[in-house]
């Protein structure tokens, strides 16, 4: 029994929950809808607990680093800000002025800063990747150049048709390829979902 529970238990639970939620999408039934929404809310509850465990894990990881005197500054910031934000959220609520202050004047500028660093990474990526070594890379470089020229004032200033070629490449071939990619990925995701529900895919269990 224990072997059955250990080996088959997770796949049975996943299959039952998955088919109920899937059934709710197609069948308009009060009982199915109630069970499905309850399962989804339980899933949200599990995720919330997982986030709590993640916070604790992060604080313990940083605290261990501090005790070993590794990356003192980074780990100190992790401990102080994670613990502080969690305590403020719990004791003063997430709508309190202090919590809003942290969100607006600490978190948002930090996210914006890390986002702005992307510009330099994109430039180095372009310099490293866009070297013409074959027909494929030639097509990529030419297309990239046309799109950039079409999206900057410089392009139409050099030659007026650049204003329409770049945008056409984005709304024409690019969208067509994206949709083909989307069809393949969507059907692949559907079949992967079926494999998981039928218990055929077991990689996520570590088997």
């Amino acid at each position, binding site marked *: 029994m224990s072997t059955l529970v250990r080996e088959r238990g997770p796949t049975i639970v996943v299959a039952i929950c998955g088919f109920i939620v899937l059934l709710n999408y197609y069948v308009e039934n009060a009982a199915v809808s109630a069970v499905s929404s309850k399962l989804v809310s339980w899933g*949200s509850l599990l995720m919330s607990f*997982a986030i709590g465990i993640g916070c604790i*894990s992060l604080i313990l990881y940083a605290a261990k680093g501090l005790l070993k005197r590794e990356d003192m500054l980074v780990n100190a910031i992790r401990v102080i800000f994670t613990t502080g934000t969690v305590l403020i959220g719990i004791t003063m609520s997430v709508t309190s002025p202090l919590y809003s202050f942290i969100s607006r004047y600490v978190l948002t500028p930090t996210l914006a800063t890390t986002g702005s660093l992307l510009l330099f990474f994109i430039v180095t990526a372009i310099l490293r990747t866009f070297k013409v070594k074959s027909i494929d890379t030639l097509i990529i470089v030419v297309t990239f150049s046309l799109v950039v020229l079409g999206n900057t004032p410089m392009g139409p200033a050099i030659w007026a048709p650049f204003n329409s070629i770049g945008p056409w490449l984005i709304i024409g071939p690019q969208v067509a390829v*994206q949709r083909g990619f989307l069809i393949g990925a969507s*059907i692949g995701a559907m079949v992967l979902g079926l494999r998981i529900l039928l218990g055929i895919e077991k*990689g996520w269990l570590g088997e």
Partner: protein
Amino acid sequence: MIQNVVTLGFTLMTLIIVQIFLGYASKGRLFELRNIPALEAFPEAIGRCAEMAKPCMFSIKGKLTSSDASSTVASLSLLSYVTSLCAKSDVKLVVPMDDPATSLLAEDVVYNAYLLEGKPEMFDRANVPYWGSSRAHDGALIEFIGKHKPGAVFHFGQYSSEAIAIPEATKRIGSIIIGGTARVAHSYELIIFDHALWGEELLAAGAYLTNDPQQLATITAEDVIKYIALGILGLSIVLYALGVTDILNWLKL
């Protein structure tokens, strides 16, 4: 009362076709997949780590609750494979995750993989850390790559724009990076990886690596379903060109 009839019909058709091919597989028929070059590079990457005595880093970016959860689950299958390769080569594997729930699941996957290889002592919970989500996760990855200089970096899942930073940080230390995503909007970032799994290659990776007849049968069924979808698409285009516009409303999934 049944709703979303067309979607239900397509789903039932998918289920029937998958069951037909599973029937073929149960009778002993073995389907073949084309070669996926990126997956062939996995042992080379781990071998590189073993030769250089450097750790290997495997990261999944994504959640289990979003619409791209399929990428996350497929990436966990790859994590199991990479862990077994690392166990065979005695390479230290660090597995930082973007989502705490995925991190908990990854701990289990990594431990089971080490156990199956007969090396449970190689498992260390500190090597499956959670360093925060989104930009915090990317920043922590860049810091780890710069400080510990892993021999190989694996980065899979649901990329967003900041995913460009990871391959760049990897190339600055002269290492190699293998990635993959099924997210359409950010699939262009894969061109800067050394090896990449595009779209359904990531989703089919589990079947490719295990060579399980049932999984291979579902991949073949997926191709048949794709041809049917393309046939419906072509027929719709022809009918629409002939003036039958109601077909679009009928096919609205």
